[in-house]
């Protein structure tokens, strides 16, 4: 067995003082297996050592919350004993090294987190970020990631109902792949990871253990350099077929009463799953590694403990239920092995070939894991741009609109979501490409809406505002489909926490998320943190992804974004001030990257959203779309293209600059379509609620017109908007 020393510890990603702490705690030098266990549990990915003290501040409570952060996934109540289990998780580092397998296993991992809790997955979503479209790797990474996400989700038979794709040069060396899953469970039949009782059998089920993914979790906490390709063996390989069997077998076992606790083997595999179960139950655990089903010969205890082979679960069963449980796994052709038992030693004890190969007190690995109060700096609000008339002098609305509709971050993403099965399970009532995906709660009148959002540009310009904005954007997506926003999950993608600026971005984004989610009663119930998204000293823009869910008590009342009928009026809810700084227009047309992001007014945000839900409940809204990237004219264009209907935009009262008006990205706004006979009533309600609104236009013909300044036929914009991505991928 290898002699452990400081250098070996450093090679495992541990710091010198962390290694010293291990030796002090154990009062001896760890052996190589023990060192492996420590390095897996103490790395950033598993220990949250830089983020923990800040995550405590998140708003995680609410009447609707059944389970907040700290479990495999969060759980919220959606009435009638139904609950939704959901979570988002990153798989950034592996996806950059091996896009297909990285993305595929990201999807597999998050689905396991959800069905581990007893829920059948009912929808998948994802948020993916790539480098500049001119970067040599972007196309291949995008193609691989999309194929990986589809390859896994399609095979399992869970619809991918919504997502988000962004391009920015800050991701050139570190792409982001965040996968989210929603599952449906009876709220009285939720399974948790906390073990209970001594001498209970510990069961290993699923795939066999191989040498893939060893040290995956440590790799996920490392900074990339030129030699990153050498890390390929640390990427896990996915087998969605086995996962489908595992899903069905676990749900079958869960229908009975034999499971005490269950935990999927995700990051750091058998190590973290066994330790987490024991730690939560305040117990010890004993494992005989000889009994772990292995795919390869001569695997060492070290390799078995650190393998991240996929599609595996660890279960603590009631004593005496082993045979009945084994029958189920035999039926599904999955491995089933009793590999150990719970103990009252409060230690993890590992045996291999009748010899004890490791013994570590569990609290050394969990509670005593390092926690850092990293230094961070507060970001200043950038100075506003002062655009002058000359900046806009030579611009034409139609030309600008065309450029914006073919901006990589705006253009249609159908090329992507056509590769995802979004209709399997027969309950998808709003497909990708809308404000949010919506699936019915099978066999009921209810439906659940879900969307993922991020706004790295805003977060980069001012993290506190950006953090608030993403939560609000998610809230608006729920409102726009007519759903009551319930809760969120967050995936916090950041650079190197050891750098004060990056750490500051993290701290302030979390602060912003907290402030907005508290105000909107839109609590965070699950999530994860991905630090060290940095290559050769270049970090990504701060990118918190927010996955939101909402509830429709009657799915027939769902709202969509495509324009419906000629003669209907369009109103814009919320005030338009023409904030161009950090907008797509500023970047794409004016080549200006400075200034503060648009301000968030939480009071207006809540009022506007609630008032739209109120109008929906009275059946007064035909169509709704929130105004986000690209401003009003982009929003109108998308609604027009989807509905194949034009819009005559009314003259704007008191308008100073039409570019600011049409492309400004002021927050808290929605465009709604109203039947003429409901107009008076709607205006009355909005006035009574003191909601700011403007009459924007009327639905007609097949053109978008604004006086003599703009006359553009849908055919002219549709083709470019719809084809951009497809053409980019083959160019």
């Amino acid at each position, binding site marked *: 067995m290898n002699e452990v020393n400081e250098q070996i510890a450093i090679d495992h990603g541990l710091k010198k003082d962390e290694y010293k702490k291990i030796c002090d705690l154990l009062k001896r030098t760890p052996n190589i297996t023990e060192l492996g266990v420590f390095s897996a549990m103490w790395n950033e990915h598993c220990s949250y050592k830089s983020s923990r003290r800040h995550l405590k501040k998140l708003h995680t409570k609410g009447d609707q919350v059944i389970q907040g952060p700290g479990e495999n996934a969060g759980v919220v109540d959606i009435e009638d004993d139904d609950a939704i289990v959901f979570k988002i998780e990153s798989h950034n580092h592996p996806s950059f090294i091996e896009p297909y397998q990285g993305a595929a296993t990201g999807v597999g991992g998050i689905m396991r987190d959800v069905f581990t809790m007893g829920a059948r997955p009912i929808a998948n979503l994802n948020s993916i970020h790539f480098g500049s479209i001119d970067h040599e790797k972007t196309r291949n990474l995008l193609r691989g990631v999309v*194929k990986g996400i*589809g*390859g896994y989700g*399609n*095979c*399992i*038979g869970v619809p991918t109902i919504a997502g988000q794709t962004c391009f920015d040069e800050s991701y050139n060396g570190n792409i982001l792949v965040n996968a989210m899953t929603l599952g449906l469970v009876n709220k009285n039949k939720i399974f948790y990871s906390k073990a209970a009782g001594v001498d209970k059998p510990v069961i290993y089920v699923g795939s066999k253990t191989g040498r893939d993914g060893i040290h995956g979790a440590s790799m996920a906490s490392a900074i990339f350099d030129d030699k990153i390709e050498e890390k390929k063996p640390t990427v896990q390989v996915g*087998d*969605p*077929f*086995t996962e*489908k*069997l595992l899903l069905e077998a676990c749900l079958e076992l869960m229908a009975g009463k034999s499971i005490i606790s269950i935990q999927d083997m995700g990051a750091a595999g058998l190590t973290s799953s066994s330790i987490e179960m024991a730690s939560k139950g305040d117990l010890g655990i004993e494992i005989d590694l000889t009994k772990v089903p292995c795919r390869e010969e001569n695997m060492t205890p070290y390799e078995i403990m650190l393998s991240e082979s996929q599609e595996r679960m660890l279960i603590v069963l009631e004593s005496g239920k082993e045979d009945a449980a084994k029958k189920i796994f035999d039926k*599904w*052709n999955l491995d089933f092995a009793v590999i150990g038992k719970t103990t009252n030693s409060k230690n993890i004890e590992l045996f291999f070939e009748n010899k004890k190969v490791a013994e570590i007190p569990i609290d050394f690995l969990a509670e005593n894991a390092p926690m850092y109060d990293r230094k961070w700096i507060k970001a200043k609000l950038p100075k506003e741009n002062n655009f002058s008339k000359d900046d806009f002098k030579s611009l034409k609305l139609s030309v600008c609109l065309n450029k914006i509709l073919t901006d990589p971050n705006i253009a249609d993403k159908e090329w992507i*979501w*056509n*590769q*995802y*099965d*979004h*209709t*399997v*399970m*027969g*309950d*998808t*009532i709003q*497909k990708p490409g809308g404000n949010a995906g919506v699936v*019915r709660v099978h066999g009921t009148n209810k439906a659940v809406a879900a969307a993922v959002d991020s706004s790295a540009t805003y977060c980069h310009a001012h993290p506190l505002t950006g953090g608030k904005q993403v939560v609000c954007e998610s809230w608006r997506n729920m409102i726009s489909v007519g759903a009551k926003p319930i809760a969120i999950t967050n995936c916090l993608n950041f650079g190197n926490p050891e750098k004060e600026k990056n750490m500051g971005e993290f701290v302030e984004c979390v602060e912003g998320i907290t402030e907005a989610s508290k105000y909107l009663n839109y609590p965070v119930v699950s999530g994860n943190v991905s630090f060290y998204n940095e290559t050769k000293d270049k970090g990504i823009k701060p990118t918190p992804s927010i996955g939101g869910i909402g509830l429709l008590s009657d*799915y*027939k009342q*769902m709202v969509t974004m495509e324009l419906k009928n000629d003669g209907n009026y369009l109103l814009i809810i919320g005030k338009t001030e023409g904030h161009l700084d950090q907008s797509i227009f500023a970047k794409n047309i004016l080549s200006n990257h400075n200034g503060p992001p648009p301000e968030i007014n939480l009071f207006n945000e809540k009022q506007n959203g609630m008032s739209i839900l109120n109008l929906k409940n009275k059946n007064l809204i035909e169509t709704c779309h929130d105004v986000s990237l690209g401003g009003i004219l982009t929003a109108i264009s998308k609604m027009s293209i989807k509905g194949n209907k034009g819009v005559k935009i009314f003259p704007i009262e008191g308008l100073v600059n039409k570019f600011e008006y049409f492309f400004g990205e002021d927050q808290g706004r929605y465009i709604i379509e109203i039947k003429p006979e409901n107009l008076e009533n709607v205006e009355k309600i909005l006035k009574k609620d003191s909601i700011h609104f403007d009459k924007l236009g009327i639905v007609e013909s097949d053109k978008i017109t604004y006086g003599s300044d703009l006359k553009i036929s849908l055919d002219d914009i549709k083709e470019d908007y719809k084809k951009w991505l497809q053409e980019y991928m083959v160019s």
Partner: protein
Amino acid sequence: MKSSVIIFPGSNCDRDMDVALKKFGFENQMVWHNDANIPKSDLIVLPGGFSYGDYLRCGSIAGKSRIIKSVVNFANSGGLVLGICNGFQILTETGLLPGILQQNKYLNFICKNVFVKIKNKENKYFKNINKEVLELHIAHNEGNYFCSKEELKSIEDNGQIAVTYCDDKGNDDEYNNPNGAIKNIAGIFNKEKNILGMMPHPERMIDPFLSGEDGSLFFENLIGNV
């Protein structure tokens, strides 16, 4: 009317098919792949999905599973056998239907609505549908139908082409071919027309809130003719 949906490990449209069959009046039962016998049925359905992970070739392992013998016997005695998507692939693997399903021409999984033209109504599957073009939904990676020239001639001569990809007006030309299938073939019969394999999923089109309702026409007609 009794129907049976076979579940293979990796099937994932079994529940959707069960919901659809029941909605239109079938008394449906689910049958496990490892069973030896199929309960008395008027219709057997092989659902979509990724049976046995689609490893080796789509549908090939399922084509050798224990239950398949009973399916073949049932089909050979004139029973109605419907294979959707992966079910179609399994039917070609068993030899109950001619030809094969290759990877889509553009090498991507495709999930979207398509139009198909009904080419033959002299059978229980399409007999009383009073439309020539149906809007259905596809979701597959290997739906590119192919067969030899001789087989194609025989299929055409025997009226075995069931549905072809087309536009909303029924033009089944090369511009309306999502996956490269020969002659735009989306579904075929055996010679006797009691076996139908097709890539589109009618079970996903049975509700105005889903992608469309033309699947309802398919099932309504089917139960009427069983």
